[in-house]
């Protein structure tokens, strides 16, 4: 009965109905889409941050080891972690006269395009 009615309805959608429908669809689907895209972007950022946190720990240990082994050239020059997508700079700051044999340095972790991703200071004791 219904099928018959549908097929027998010869009026179709009016333009107004179509516009309303499209408008409604756009109004509803747009924020949904943005939401999904944002979530995906945030997740990607989280993933990168996790990776950055992980590499930060590794780099921190690496810098401490190099300073304590007095491999100072290496600590400045050999800072490439491009396989993980990062590199870092180490800048030594003036020594604190209150602490003998303590190197104070700033470590900047950058991505491969040079953007600074993380910055931290370290004080490291080294033996003469």
């Amino acid at each position: 009965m219904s099928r018959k009615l549908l097929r027998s309805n010869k009026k179709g959608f009016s333009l107004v109905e179509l516009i309303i429908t499209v408008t409604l669809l756009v109004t509803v689907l747009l924020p949904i889409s943005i939401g999904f895209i944002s979530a995906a972007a945030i997740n990607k950022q989280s993933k990168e941050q996790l990776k950055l946190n992980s590499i930060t720990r590794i780099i921190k240990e690496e810098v401490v080891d190099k300073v304590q082994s007095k491999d100072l050239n290496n600590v400045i020059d050999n800072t490439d972690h491009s396989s993980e997508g990062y590199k870092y700079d180490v800048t030594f700051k003036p020594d604190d006269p209150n602490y003998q044999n303590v190197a104070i340095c700033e470590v900047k972790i950058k991505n491969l395009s040079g953007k600074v991703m993380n910055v931290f200071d370290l004080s490291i004791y080294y033996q003469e």
Partner: protein
Amino acid sequence: MKKNLLWKSKKGISLPMILIVITVVLSMVVTLLSLSVQQLKTIKSDNHIEHTYFAGDSMIEMTISKIYSFLDPTNLNSIPYNGYQDYAERICAGLNNEPDIVKSKKSINTGASGQQAISIVKSLDLVEVVLDDVNNKIRFKLRINTSTDYHTGYKSGSKETIAIKEFEVSVPVDKKPKLAAINSIGDLVATGAMESTITGDVKVYGSAPKEPVKVEQEFYGGIFSQRDAILRIEGNAFVRSFIRTGIKDDDRVNALNEIVPDNSRIYITKSAIAQGLHSFGYGSFIYVHKDAYTFDDVEMNAEDSAIIINRNLFALEDGAGTQGKFHDNSSAMVNSSPLYFLNSEGSLKSRIVVNGPVYLNGGTFRVNDNGLLLYPPLGLTALGDINYGQPQIEDGSIGWYMEEEAPYYTKFEDPNTDFIGKSYHAYMYDNDKDKVRGYGNLIQAFDQRTDDRDSAIKPFIDVMVKNAMKDGYSDAILSFIDRPSDKKIMGITDYEIAANGTMYFMDTNDESISGLKRPTSTAGNYSDAYLNYQKIHKNGSGYTKQQWIDDWNNAIDGTKDWDSLDQNAYTKIIPAIFNKLTGDNDTSGPLYELTEQFVKRTVTYPVGSAKAGVQHDLVTIPGESTNIFSSYNKELFDLESLNDPYFKNVSSEAGPVDLSTIANETDKYYVIYNNTPENDLIINSKINALIFTTGRVILRDGGDLRGCIIAAGKGYDGGVSGSQSEAGKIPKIDSTNYDYLNDGTFAGVKFEGSAKINFAPRDNDWSDPETAPDVFFEEFALSNSPALVSKLKTIFN
């Protein structure tokens, strides 16, 4: 009706459905977004916290820097050394008192530039201390605990970071040990009829037997008074060998060919730390006004003689370990005189007297609960070997068996048959408690004396010695000297103590005292309530370290006639004793060190030989190839370049050097330097000097030295040539060179007549600071050029 309408309506259903779907999907999106944002925040917070920990790590690194700065040797000079454990504890305490280390807040850069965390070291604790005596190092671990807060966009909360780091310091073998009145590698010998006084501490290393496993204790030197000599030390005595009187089996005879009594005396007005206190001869006595600490026995092998300790006896060595394989490294209190002299009248009068608590960590011959030797001689391992199983009376002996009227320190029961299934000591208690007595030792039978002035001590000693040596054993049974009150007796021991006319047995039922055993009910005259520690036994509860310390302190407080006690000394000694008892630590070590200023002695077992030997190693300065004595030698020799008229190098003089002609201005102070060991330096008049010699100093009648002596003594190298400050030349005594020990050839300082040395003792006890050198150098400075005194202070301060 409506439901039907809804389901049946063919119009308007699409919009509600769309709204529902949209709502659901939007909710999901919002949730998803919220979760993602939360996750990102968490991860960023994690990064923030990471930076907080980095700041904590930085704080630890900076603290380590501060610790290393604190451990600078020049900084550590002010920390007294009384053993490595104590030293590490003092360092840790010092670090905790440093205002810039513990409890001091510090801002630490972390995160992006300019951002700061606040960190603080909450605590610095000592975790472990190890002595590396091969490399002369003390290694200790410190636990550093920091707390850090870091607030920017996130709050980290207080994050704790803990690190345990090992640090290392050199054993402070003091390159410049404080001077005592006598500082000698060789013996201090006083011989012949005279009375000599040393005002000041005495540090003597002294001779030792070539084969220490044997029991020829007459081969030990140290502080050695003989043949009527009266030696009075107004100070402390630190001796790696014995403090002894008399020559064993002395054959000195008078015109009537009668044996002449030894009659020698040694008075020590403060404390004695020595391998042992030992008497040979006849009519001699040793008196220690304060405490005696021994690594070996307090042993009586003389007739009509006494060894008297006015305060406490700490017999430290328990006989365990390699060095305990011979009885001379097990500390006991042994009156062997009646056995050695076969109950002669004189031997029955000899006494060992201790007026204070007695702490006996060793025994006459170390035995286990079954009475078997803990360390049987090499090669004797079978139970049936007679030398293996000779049950002993421990630890204060000897005992007197009433039935036989004979003294024993052994009771030859057969361990295979007589006390199977029972502790030997329980067996002995059950079977012998009514039969055995102990007369040779008197513990706490006399009140301690508080006055160490000569005028006060001498009459007291006369009374005490007369009482101690009063009558023989047989008479003593009937009329014993004044008995100590029940509550007064204090002490600690492993097994039995024969003393006070009775026998204190160990409490064989008391197995709950954490390895400590106490003498308990006595045979004969005393009740079970006699000993102070009965209350512990009756409670049936374990006896803790703190209880013992409390008891000890109560006893101290309750004994009003004691000297004003050096609480610091007790604070150090009591934990040390308990460490020893519980096997945690070697507590005698620090006391050994006090007696090994120039030379360290060890017992060795040469490869391929079952015989133990003695090894003397000159104490080297950490990080340097030279030893302390040689260092003094060089530094003093260098003073010659000052061309000071009061620096006298007598090394090139021929024969004995009479110092009265060298240091003849009695209002001036001299430095006498002698690097020729064959040159004896003779003092027979009044002189003021610091005397250094690689040989020997001899004081004769009229000798009066204001100053001090550093002497090596002549060594032997197939004879008596060379100096004991040369490696390998310190005498090892056996029958071939025994006479050189007895006649003072090996001495660093020898008194041949009545003479005096006046330096100054420490204020009160052995652990007090040594101020005498400062006073001496001040006087020195008044009479001499400042340059010479300034150099001397550099060398010795």
